């Protein structure tokens, strides 16, 4: 069957063998069947935007077609396609933020009894940013006003976003000068779709500028709103320890998996699972308790706030079911494979879809409503418990692999981590960079992808970065990949880091890799960068910082959107496999070179993890040189 089965962590390899033995097709098998992938698609030069086509540009044959029927060349086609990818990705995050705003408003109105405001001070800070009067008002009143302002921002037609004002002055002026400052949230998405229709915007540079505006409305808009409101509703994370990998599933317990992205659902499931009535019921059914574990990003929402263990990342969603011990898989949206109901059909596992936006044929649909959140959660868990006796004992296989990790770092917590509650400062981090103990800060984020040596790309890259004194921040499935390898522990500092970074970690007591949450929380990396600029000594714009982002195994359009909001904010972003632009020389030049003159950020594409590290390190060194920082202390 699959040739590439030896990739990945031990639990993944083990479970792929089990799947093979059971004759169950997984993502790796389907990936093989798709090979070779369509070359025109990979290069970004096929267009299906009107019915004069589909058209494709021949990149090799000089006599082949160089223009589509309408006259669009490779540049326009690649740019339009890319803009649509950015837009779809941004739409996901923005919609996620909208969902949170809805839950937040219902909670504030007292209409969603299971939810409450847990971070008062953060609510007040955010309300003030949005110009909501705070003094002398109840939290509920403040929150309702805030929710309305945020909703209004989604439909805003002109002006600027509120949270983007957090960026350094120099960076904001750059956006204004380029005309890419987002004016609203939804309007940029709509305009993008309009621009990419046949015969509208036919200049690849203009298309890409709008692409950056869409991406910025995600990073500094929808994503940031989602992060902020999630913290306010479900508490602001602080570091905690937990475990990761399929080994967190328990043979003698009712196992419930949450999968998807929006914590409105997953947090409620995690909360309800500790209901004594349900635990009693589980025991009555012969289980010793209830285990809630997560898959993909929603796992990380409940990990960073509640310490709920992570069963696996994106590629492990099918494997988790193949353990045969999952009583129920509850999903909402994003990154949920359509294959899941089929795979569940081989076992007793119930798959429950919950979002009116995301239906899965073969699953049971139970719409999740915030107003009855707790009851619905209890009802689902009860059904999962009832399902426990239905396990097929012959089809059970739980891998032993499980690793400990530390997670839950936020922009706000870093102040306290480095300076305590009174001094509360980023200075030790800035000093660490300026004095040459830390080379720079790099976000290693994104998905895992069956096209790559899944997991290993992340591990090799990160070890190389750590060795070169690069402080790593992580989110999403990339973070889970490292968690499964035991890298997200403070002990990692003494195994893999250069001496300078090691000294910092020893002084602070933090791991050299800071796990900041799910992929929507990449917004935390943006705000942390703002705080670094604010702490002084490392330039005045985001583009001056010795930082970079890398998504070695990206697969989702969301990753493209995230990458672009970092590039538009002035960072180098490295992807493993390129997104589809190589069919256009101009577009390739634009994203890898020309854009740097505009924003200070740019793209690089490199599959080899060690070469990725080299690109990043050279970039950090050149930024260090421009800032005239001290040479690395222990080089």
């Amino acid at each position, binding site marked *: 069957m699959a040739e590439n089965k030896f990739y990945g962590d031990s639990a993944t390899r083990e479970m792929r063998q089990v799947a093979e033995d059971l004759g169950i097709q997984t993502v790796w098998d389907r990936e093989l069947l798709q090979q070779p992938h369509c070359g025109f698609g990979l290069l970004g030069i096929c267009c299906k935007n009107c019915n004069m086509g589909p058209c494709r540009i021949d990149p090799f044959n000089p006599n082949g077609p160089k223009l589509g029927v309408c006259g669009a060349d490779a540049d326009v086609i690649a740019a339009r396609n890319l803009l649509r990818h950015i837009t779809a990705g941004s739409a996901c995050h923005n919609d996620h933020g909208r969902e949170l705003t809805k839950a937040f408003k219902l909670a504030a109105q007292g209409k969603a009894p299971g939810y409450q405001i847990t971070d008062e001070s953060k609510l007040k800070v955010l309300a003030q940013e949005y110009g909501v009067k705070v003094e002398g008002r109840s939290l509920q009143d403040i929150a309702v006003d805030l929710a309305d302002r945020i909703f209004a921002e989604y439909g805003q037609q002109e002006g600027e976003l509120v949270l983007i004002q957090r960026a350094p002055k120099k960076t904001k002026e750059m956006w204004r000068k380029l005309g890419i400052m987002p004016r609203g949230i939804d309007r940029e998405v709509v305009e993008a779709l309009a621009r990419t229709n046949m015969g509208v915007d036919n200049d690849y540079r203009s298309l890409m500028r709008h692409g950056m505006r869409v991406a910025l409305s995600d990073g500094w808009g929808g994503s940031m709103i989602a992060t902020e409101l999630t913290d306010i509703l479900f508490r602001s994370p602080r570091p905690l320890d937990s475990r990761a990998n399929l080994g967190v599933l328990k043979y003698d317990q009712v196992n419930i998996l949450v999968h998807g992205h929006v914590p409105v659902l997953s947090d409620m499931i995690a909360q309800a699972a500790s209901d004594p009535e349900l635990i009693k019921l589980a025991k009555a059914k012969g289980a010793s308790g209830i285990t809630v574990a997560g898959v993909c990003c929603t796992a990380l929402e409940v990990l960073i706030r509640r310490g709920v263990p992570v069963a696996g990342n994106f590629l492990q969603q099918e494997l988790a079911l193949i353990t045969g011990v999952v009583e129920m898989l509850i999903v909402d949206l994003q990154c949920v494979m359509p294959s899941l109901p089929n795979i569940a059909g081989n076992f007793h596992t119930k798959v429950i879809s919950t979002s009116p936006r995301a239906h899965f044929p073969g699953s049971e649909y139970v719409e999740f409503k915030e107003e009855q959140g707790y009851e619905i959660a209890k009802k689902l868990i009860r059904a999962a418990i009832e399902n426990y006796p239905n396990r097929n004992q012959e089809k059970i296989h739980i891998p032993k692999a499980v690793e400990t990790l530390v997670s839950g770092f936020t922009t706000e917590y870093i102040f306290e981590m480095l*300076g*305590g509650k009174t001094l509360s400062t980023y200075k030790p981090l800035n000093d660490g960079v300026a004095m040459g103990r830390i080379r720079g800060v790099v976000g290693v984020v994104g998905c895992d992808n069956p096209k790559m040596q899944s997991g290993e790309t992340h591990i090799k890259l990160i070890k190389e970065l750590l060795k070169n004194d690069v402080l790593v921040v992580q989110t999403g499935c990339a973070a889970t990949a490292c968690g499964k390898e035991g890298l997200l522990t403070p002990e990692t500092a003494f195994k893999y880091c250069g001496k300078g970074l090691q000294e910092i970690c020893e002084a*602070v007591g933090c791991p050299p890799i800071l796990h900041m949450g799910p992929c929507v929380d990449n917004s935390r990396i943006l705000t942390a960068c703002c705080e670094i600029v604010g702490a002084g000594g490392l330039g005045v714009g985001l583009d001056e910082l010795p930082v970079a982002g890398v998504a070695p195994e990206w697969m989702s359009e969301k990753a493209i959107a995230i990458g672009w909001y970092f590039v538009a904010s002035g960072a180098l972003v490295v992807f493993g496999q390129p997104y589809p632009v190589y069919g256009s020389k101009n577009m390739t030049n634009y994203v890898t070179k020309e854009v740097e003159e505009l924003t200070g950020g740019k793209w690089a594409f490199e599959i080899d993890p060690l070469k990725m590290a080299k690109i990043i390190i050279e970039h950090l060194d050149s930024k260090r040189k421009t800032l005239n920082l001290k040479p690395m202390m222990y080089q």
Partner: protein
Amino acid sequence: MSKIVAAAAIRGARVIAREAEEFLNKALKEHGPDARIGFPETAFFLPMANALLGLEVKTLKEAGNVFNYAKGLLPLEPKEKLWLPYLGDALDAGIATLLCEEIITVLRYLYKQEPQTDCNGFFTDTILRSLGIQLVDGRMPGFAAILGAAPTNEIAVSVVRQLQERNILIFVGSSSGGRSIIDQLKESGVEMGWDNYIVPYGRDTISAIYPLNWAIRSAMTFGGLKAGQGKKCLLYTKERVFAFGLTLGLVDDLKYATGAGAINMGFPIIADTDIPEIKPSGITTYEALVKEFDYKKIVPRCIEVRGVRVKVSKIPIPVLYGAAFEGERVRREQLYCEFGGKSSQAFELISMRDSSQIEDGKIELVGPDIDQLPEKVKSLPLGILIEVAGRKLQKDFEPILERQLHRFFNYCMGVMHIGQRDMNWIRISKDAFAKGLRVKHLGIVLHAMIHEEFGAIADKVQITIFTKEEDVQRELIKARQVYAERDERLGGMTDESVDTFYSCELCQSFAPNHICVITPEKVGLCGAYSWLDTKAAYEIAPSGGNKPIPKGECLDPVNGEWASVNAYVSLRSNRTLERFSMYSIVNNPSTSCGCFECIMAVIPEANGIMIVHRDFSGMTPCGMTFTTLAGSVGGGIQTPGFLGVGKIYLTSKKFISADGGLRRLIWMPKELKELLGEKLIKRVQEIGEPDLLEKIADETIATTSEELMLFLEKVKHPALTLPPLF
């Protein structure tokens, strides 16, 4: 913060918190919640709690609030494996420790357990202010807090001497293995006290809060920060107070906890034992925690780690030399030989010469040295003639240089100098003589120091020392002529007779928005800088702390307002001040850094002004002590109705001349009246109020407004008939 250190600091904080809690409960039980508590002579209540939390603790109940806050900060110890970040936790533990130590020590005051034997206890606000100018002009480049005990008394003395030699103010205390450095120094006969730069605070680690809650006050006194601006106060001490901790002997949990508190303030810790080091900077300017086993290297290491800027002039004489020895006395029983005073005739004179007339470094002793003294004779006449030449030297600088001789002599260990001109008095101790110090060495000292401090104006220095009676008498006649000429010239110098004033911005290292404008008739508020001093300082170092301000257009001759002064002050006060008048306490008065010698305050009901000097600790008729008054005027803020001034300003013709001058003065401490003596009497005669001094009340007459009013009316004080002040 290595995990071991963080764990120890957190454990230590918990022990100290428990002690604070138990002591507080005992006090509450025995004295009740409303019992008043406080440290002596401070306007800052419990200074650490005041600075960090903005709390004004006056009662036991209020101390309970501080304790509850501290308790809320106490973190858990980090785990053995898979630990969570502990730096912030350890810093929190440090803050909790400082707050709890302050509670414990203030309760000790309640129970009369402080100060401990031979120790200073709590450091008063007065000490902070009086040291102000030395802190900023480099004479006192830093502070060391020593905790523990050295392996031997000799090492203890050696470490302290090394610090003294660098003019670092040393706080000694705490213990290690049952020994305290205080006793080590005492047993070795080391003189301690503020004058000697060695201050014992207490024999336990908890009393190490005294230097720390002294340092934090500087942020509010000089930095213009308000109580409760905790983070800013901590950053202020990091940037501007060059202190460090030196632990001798085992570093136990309590010392780690206190050290974590100090590190919050930006003060690194240096240990002589094998401790885990913390090298990354950020909380501290450089390393936070380092070790050094070699006692010859430990002091230089401290200086390096804290970034203290020490200026050491190595002078080839057989005794130690440094500002730290300035306050040392040579008492009769220690006396080997003396000059001047009642024992013999002596004088000292600096005279400007043409470069061709003198030879640099020529030091000539005319007459016998002190090793040729006949038996039982303990005195010699002495004449010291210092001839200086320099392209940028001016005749006016002679008295400025001459005034420094006092310091230069006193910096010698075992030498005491009092007075000036032909009223000087010098003593040399037996120890110093035994070490080989001779009169000729005094010449070496003066030559070296004039070059060191005045190198920019003095190119050549030649010194002749006379010890024979006939030579001294002959030279004295010439010297007295010079003194008389100088007095005449200086007396005639007025604000109108010069075209340039000078700024003094020395204190901006401490009080970033404050600026003094110094004129011939208005001395700096610290009393240390006259117009001539600033003029000379500018010549010596044009990029230094004193800048010329050309007078230009006068906007208001009565209040003393000049356009150029306004513009300069606005620029250099970081645009916090717009207008600045030189002669008024009411209209746009001058600001204060915090090191003023005296404070004046308007007493509205009396239509007059009171003045109180730093050394007066009693109550004044405005209802505030010096310390409390000082709290409302420091930090470069313009406060109409209040003014910080130098003592000698009272005898100036421009003394608040816009507001009525000396006629406004209705109250001053007796001591200050006596201190100004003849000069003040002369001034009141000049203004035609010869009996004014008797009409000015003092503390023996009035300490309340009512008493004061009764007295003023009785004596018909002229202020009562002056136009209203506001």
